[in-house]
């Protein structure tokens, strides 16, 4: 990209109908830019504007109210306060439980699959397969698996282990089990694939040298595999945390947020406030507060991406 590699081109006139026209790069950018500005950038500003006004679907925009809807989120006497923070806590709980599972178990699967073994490609395909299903299909499946009476989990508990039925879908705390199990089943293959790619990048000579030095399997994992995977682990953890905070379809389909909002995700609550309660402005304010809280993680993800981009060398 240095100027030396490229002879200085003569700048042509803006009206030139050939390659010297300096507008050519902009013409290439234009189609994307139009859609990008209209459907990505403009809605951010528009959303901020909406959150500062009263607004409903029938009458559209009403009077300016300033930060009212933001203040509501910090005023314990409003329903928005209790529901927003409750559902945010629900989502944080889900994230805190599912992220270690999704990172740790994915690493375990990748290690099991990394060395050649009979039918390795088949196993890899099977572990990844659930990830291509839509969230609706995945949710319906796991709702049926954990059905209060006739779900396979309860039937097996009764028939083979003589254990009592658990009302998974309608009991507080137990309702998280189908959501978390379903999510792990659904998305673990993605993380596993990233770990497999990273394991492929570790030089075998390191392990040979360690073996000669008498390192056992655990020592080899602890002092070679784990440290060399740490950039991958960081990347996977951050993306998994972000994805988990976006929890929506799983709990919507499996429990519909119940019982009594105990598994309702913050995104589901925001959509309920917008489209169920017709409080578009209040919901917009919540979306911005949520987005700001997420910025902690998105900023890390962004930095990681930029670091890789620079490491690739330009």
């Amino acid at each position: 990209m240095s100027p030396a590699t490229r002879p200085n081109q003569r700048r042509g006139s803006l009206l030139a109908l050939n390659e010297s026209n300096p507008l050519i790069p902009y013409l290439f950018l234009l189609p994307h830019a139009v859609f990008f500005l209209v459907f990505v950038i403009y809605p951010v500003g528009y959303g901020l504007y909406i959150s500062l006004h009263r607004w409903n679907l029938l009458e559209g925009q009403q009077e300016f109210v300033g930060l009212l809807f933001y203040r509501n989120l910090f005023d314990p006497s409003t329903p928005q306060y209790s529901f927003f923070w409750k559902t945010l806590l629900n989502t944080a709980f889900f994230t805190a439980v599912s992220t270690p599972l999704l990172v740790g178990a994915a690493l375990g699967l990748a290690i099991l699959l990394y060395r050649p073994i009979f039918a390795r490609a088949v196993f890899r395909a099977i572990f990844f397969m659930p990830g291509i299903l839509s969230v609706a299909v995945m949710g319906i499946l796991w709702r049926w698996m954990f059905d209060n009476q006739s779900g396979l989990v309860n039937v097996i508990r009764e028939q083979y282990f003589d254990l009592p039925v658990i009302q998974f879908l309608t009991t507080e705390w137990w309702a998280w089990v189908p959501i978390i199990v379903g999510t792990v089943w659904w998305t673990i293959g993605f993380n596993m694939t990233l770990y497999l790619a990273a394991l492929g990048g570790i030089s075998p000579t390191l392990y040979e040298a360690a073996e000669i030095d008498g390192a056992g399997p655990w020592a080899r994992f602890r002092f070679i595999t784990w440290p060399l995977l740490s950039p991958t682990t960081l990347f996977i953890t951050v993306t998994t945390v972000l994805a988990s905070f976006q929890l929506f379809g799983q709990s919507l389909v499996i429990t519909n947020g119940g019982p009594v909002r105990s598994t309702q995700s913050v995104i589901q609550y925001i959509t309920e406030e917008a489209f169920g309660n017709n409080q578009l402005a209040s919901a917009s304010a919540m979306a911005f507060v949520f987005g700001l809280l997420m910025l902690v993680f998105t900023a890390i993800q962004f930095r990681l991406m930029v670091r890789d981009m620079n490491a690739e060398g330009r």
Partner: protein
Amino acid sequence: MAALPNSPRGSRSQARWRRVRDVPRFVLLVVLAIIFLAPLYWMLTTSFKPEAETISIPVQWVPANPTLENYAEIVNSPDGRLLRWTWNSVFTAAAFTLATLALCVLAAYPLARMRFRGRELWFWFILSSMMVPGIVTLIPSYIMMLNLNWIDTYHALIWPGVANAFGVFLLRQFFLGIPRELQEAARMDGANSLQVLRHVILPLSVPVLVTLGVFSFMGSWNNYVWPLYVATSPDMQTLPVGITSFSQRYVTEYGKLMAGTALAAVPVLVAYLLAQRYLVQGIALTGMKE
């Protein structure tokens, strides 16, 4: 348990010992694979059972009286519309993928290969939009759809997501890796910038185009929040949304529910088994950035 590759040296007896040592690992993998496949197996089994047997105890692992009546009923049911939803999803995902590829290729090319004022600034601007979570733009975008009269149209399902930042980023990084000499040589032969893109850059970028294509298609196919609100009429719903309303209708008729779910899942599973290679390559490729 440990992640050590076999050493290339070693006698035959060592190799045999390794094979023996692999047995527990293999057994563990088989058990895990069975657990992973169980829900899908149970979906198919249930869908072939007469309604009365779906909840029979003891568990019927294999349907005693297999039947296709569940499938016949839901395909013919007036409120099923599974074919219509599938078509909506296929059409939307295909159009979305083509539009995304076209826009992102055109934008990534000058960002990687031309010099002009504001290039870095614009690239960073696009990139930084990746930090905005989808929920922030959901409500304003919905109101835009209302004002454009796009609710319950394919426009609403296709256009709002096509100018994504990830696609531009992915393609730009790939284009940067294509040797500049090829481009210069084509220029010497009198090719203009569009011809360079078409005859030099694109033929060399097939893997990354396939990756972006597969990701875009899957992203649209599995999109849930957006179509849930902008395509609500039974004729315009996409498959994930339609199957959800379907599941609320057949909430206790497990045979029909699972037949509908299977009809939504099986084509995707078959496509996955055919295109699996590209998908895994794609994840490895984009993950390799790490």
